[in-house]
């Protein structure tokens, strides 16, 4: 009985079972297709369609740390209008697949950034916006409280330089990420990760 509830009185307490990753029907189809002659072509076509969808609806987490967040807001607002790229901010990490680390990250904030990243569902991406998030920037020397690069706590996919980067620069970073997403072997990676018992691939 896997109800997740504590066992009722008198019911035998069963040993905790190790969690087994379910290989869904999709993963099986992918495996079979991949082994058939010509199946790879079909897979690639399906994959590119899926990737087009994923790249065109990147939902970032609304999460600003410092000055760069103001430029991020400007990028979402009237003149630059990131919505036209399908980038719509979400207020909770559970609905987001992109984290834009905008601004300097202090040592007190670092564990929270990490936890927010962990709460995001996979596949997930991180853009480090501004020189502070990238390497500590103007707060590199003589400083005891700022993390020297947010890549010490979360894996970063795209670095956007600048202090602060102009909204155009952030948009360029997002376009770069979209290019990358469009080339990913998304289906195969998900399927094989499930088969090999890993919890998804990045």
């Amino acid at each position, binding site marked *: 009985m896997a109800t997740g509830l504590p066992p009722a009185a008198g019911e035998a307490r069963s040993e905790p079972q190790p969690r087994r990753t379910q290989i869904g029907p999709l993963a099986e189809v992918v495996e079979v297709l991949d082994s058939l002659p010509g199946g790879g072509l079909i897979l690639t076509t399906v994959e590119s369609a899926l990737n087009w969808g994923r790249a065109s609806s990147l939902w970032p*987490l*609304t*999460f*600003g*740390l*410092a*000055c760069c*967040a*103001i*430029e991020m*807001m*400007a990028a979402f*607002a*009237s*003149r630059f209008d990131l919505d036209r790229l399908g980038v719509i901010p979400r*207020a909770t*990490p559970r609905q987001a697949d992109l984290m834009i680390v905008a*601004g*300097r990250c*202090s040592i*007190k*904030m670092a564990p*929270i950034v990490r936890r*927010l990243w962990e709460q995001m569902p996979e596949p997930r991406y991180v853009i480090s916006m501004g020189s502070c998030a990238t390497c500590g920037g*103007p*707060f590199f*020397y*003589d*400083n*005891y*409280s*700022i993390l020297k690069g947010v890549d010490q706590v979360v894996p970063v996919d795209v670095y956007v330089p600048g*202090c*602060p980067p*102009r909204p155009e620069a952030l948009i360029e970073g997002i376009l770069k990420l979209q290019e990358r997403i469009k080339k990913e072997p998304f289906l195969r990676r998900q399927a094989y990760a499930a088969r090999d018992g890993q919890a998804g691939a990045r």
Partner: protein
Amino acid sequence: MPLRTEELLLNMGPQHPSTHGVLRLVLTLDGENITDVRPDIGYLHSSVEKMMEHRTYVQNVALTDRGMDYLIALNNEAAYCLAVEALAGVEVPERARYIRVIFQELNRIASHLVWLGTWGIDLGATTVFLWCFRERERVLDLFEQVTGGRLHHVYFRIGGVYADVPDGWTGACRDFLDYFLPRVDEYHQLLTQNPIFEARTRGVGVIGRREAAAMGASGPVARASGIAYDVRKAAPYEVYDRLEFDVPVQTSGDCLARYLVRLEEMRQSVRIIRQALKDLPAGEVRARVPVAMKPPRGEVYVRTESPRGTLGMYVVSDGGETPYRVKIRAPSFSNLYALTEMMRGWKIADIIAILGSIDIVLSDVDR
């Protein structure tokens, strides 16, 4: 049978769409009602005061942009430059003083626009956000033509400003003012006359005159509670004593009053800039100051009126090339104290309105 109730501790932030940065509020709840609020700050502590002790007086201007309140870079620069100028006895040319006033007031408009836009989003009015940022982009364009930067300028120098404004800039600035003034009326139409907005702000988060003063609140927060205090009037710096403007005051001390004060302040800023553009004298914009300047031994405290309140800068010199100590009196930090007083007794949903209405910037609180 009497119902047993328990107090609930709820964490709000540091990642929350309406805490405007990385503020954590520890709320003690009795049902929906707030019995106590404890702000937990320090998530953006940048140790900027310490860093300033390691950089020369001239280099530090760049740090005041970034390490302090990032929405009002130019007002920070002005406070720092005024302090060092007072310490070293530097005489600033007339034209530079006027240019500084123009830029500080433009920055006040830009900062209030960001506040209004984000507060609008918190209260569910997305249009205001888009409108405010539309106008703000035009202010930033004006900045960009002169300083090259949108957010961080490093334009003010000890002894003046970096360079004169380019040809035609004053005309562009006047055009913007003509465009902007009617927009303030639009905001009034959009929000002040909106019954939902009024229901969420009128009478909410009241803080009385005496409490506001006791908590050290300043700026629009204090003026909305009936304290008619503005450093630009009380202890004029730059050329504010030569310019005519009113200090808007409200007496009700609620969110609506704070909103009305700021909207009126934008109008007054336009008035100040118009006068300064008219009176703008010709001449030098920068006094000769050695790059490795060494102000004499001593200390100085300078007050300015930033969009968020009284911004103080305390600089101690031991005669060396770097300051011995810099202490920043941040208005957001003091206004955050008043928050606890305002929030007690209100419901969770009202927190968003109250928090937005005091307009804190976490970089200013933590430094």
